[in-house]
């Protein structure tokens, strides 16, 4: 900024000096002319020049400041991306090392059984275990690829009726064995008018909503309530999946949208920790937003906002292939 001012000083003064000089020259050439007529053209030119210079200087200053701010934002984003990447690699390491250790132990058991003919663990049990762990890794890899694929693939832009979709989700969740022990309610508005259509890919929205409701069932106990609520405020449809389940500890809530993030309570349950990351990607690629609120021990509510079909200015970002909507959602696969 200092450089701008000091470098600009001669430029700032130049028009005024030129104006004054012009006035003096005119005075000398036309000594009989009236003073205001002589001075004012010079002054006018000088003032106009000064104003132009000031405006240009202001524009330059604003641009420089904006550039500094952008640079800072880029720097922050890069730092955040680097941190996210590191955390992701640590979680990946964590998710892989257990099944791989189990596989190596299983193979050792099989070898020993082959050597001696007897062993504590029969080859059959060891084989079943190795096979199960291989499937676990396959599942993990499949989920990560699914995520990477969803971030880039073209999203279909067809009208979607969320009411019928929510009922389909309900039916799918009912097929989960423990679902019958929860009180699951789906509330969609009928008055003053039904829920408006949104635009997008029905199959992907099914995955997102099924994930949320299945999560609510998974992290609650028999007798708990799971509510699926839908509402509308003109431009957006709001979908909420709420449960009276275990809730998420405060120190874990910030990470829940990250791929492979699994809370301490989830460690003992099957899953790869990809569900909410998947929900986030699907919703963002539909031009929507996600949010989560939770109280440890009381329950959780996940909210999704999706743009109503055909609303100007809030049209969903769909059918744009290979465009990342969220630079932090990147998965190195």
């Amino acid at each position, binding site marked *: 900024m200092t450089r701008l001012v000091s470098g600009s000083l001669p430029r700032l003064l130049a028009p005024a000096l030129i104006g004054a000089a012009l006035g003096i020259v005119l005075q000398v050439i036309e000594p009989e002319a009236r003073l205001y007529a002589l001075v004012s053209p010079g002054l006018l030119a000088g003032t106009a020049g000064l104003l132009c210079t000031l405006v240009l200087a202001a524009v330059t200053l604003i641009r420089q400041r904006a550039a500094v701010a952008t640079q800072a934002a880029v720097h922050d984003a890069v730092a955040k991306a680097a941190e996210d990447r590191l955390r992701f690699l640590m979680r990946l390491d964590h998710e892989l090392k257990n099944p791989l250790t189990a596989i190596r132990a299983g193979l050792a058991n099989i070898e020993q059984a082959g050597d001696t003919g007897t062993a504590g663990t029969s080859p059959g049990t060891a084989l079943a275990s190795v096979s199960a762990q291989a499937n676990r890794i*396959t599942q993990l*890899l*499949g989920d990560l*690829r*699914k995520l990477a*694929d969803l971030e880039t*693939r073209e999203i*279909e832009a*067809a009208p979607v009726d969320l009411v019928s979709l929510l009922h*389909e989700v309900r*039916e*799918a*969740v009912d*097929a989960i064995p423990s679902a019958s022990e929860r009180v699951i309610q789906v509330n969609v508005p009928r008055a003053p008018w039904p829920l408006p259509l949104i635009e997008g890919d*029905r*199959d992907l929205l*099914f*995955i997102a909503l*099924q*994930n949320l409701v*299945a999560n609510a069932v998974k992290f609650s106990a028999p007798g708990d309530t799971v509510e699926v609520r839908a509402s509308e405020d003109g431009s957006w449809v709001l979908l909420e999946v709420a449960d009276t389940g275990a809730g998420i500890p405060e120190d874990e809530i910030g990470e829940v949208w990250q791929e492979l993030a699994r809370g301490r309570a989830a460690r003992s349950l099957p899953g790869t920790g990809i569900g909410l990351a998947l929900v986030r990607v699907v919703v963002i690629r539909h031009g929507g937003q996600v949010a989560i609120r939770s109280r440890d021990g009381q329950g959780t509510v996940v909210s999704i906002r999706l743009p109503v079909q055909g609303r100007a200015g809030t049209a969903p970002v769909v059918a744009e292939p290979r465009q990342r909507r969220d630079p932090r959602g990147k998965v190195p696969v």
Partner: protein
Amino acid sequence: MGRQRARPVVILADDDNAITSNLAPFLERAGLTVHVASDGEAVLELVERLDPDGCILDVLMPRLDGREALRRLRADGHWLPVVLLTQVGESTERAIALDEGADDYLNKPFDPYELLARLRAVMRRARPGRRPLSASPALRAGDLRMDRISRRAWLRDAELVLTPKAMLLLDYLLTHPDELLTRDRLLEVLWGFEFPVGTRAVDNRIAELRRALGDDAVRPEWIATVPGQGYRFVAKVDEVR
């Protein structure tokens, strides 16, 4: 071709020795004679020399990759059935691109039993010495006609208006006629990844196709439901010459 072999001869092409050294004995035990190739050029050479009954082709290989090897095979008039091992996501629109002419696709990592089932299916479907349906640019089934290159279909003279996914599904049905296609398999064709249990993604697209074709699910002319399992394309499919 057209000869009967007691043990079908297949080529297994993958540059990763860990894959071939485990899969080859597995396929041998299943009653196949397996020849391993580690790059595309070796595949071309083996096909010329052995006139095999089938081929499993990995996409990523040195020197000549799987896609290019397949293109050359087809260009030279070799119509042996080929299962292409692809990456996730490539099994969808991009991979079913006609210029490759693979008979089926499978994503790594796969279940070896699934690979065997697919290989047997494509070998059973093979029409010795003739171009497979999956390598044909245009197909016909009764009054239904499909131009696979431009991805357009007509019923009698009326062009069908279909979503891209339904068109992709129709393409797969037409190139795999009279085969039981499970929902899981069709999901993989459409999406390339697993869906939650209970999804109706496939059924919805089938319903879209049936609406467009005016097909009756109870007395189907084209798409039959196999209860509890999936679907079967029941009409006879021919190349349009």
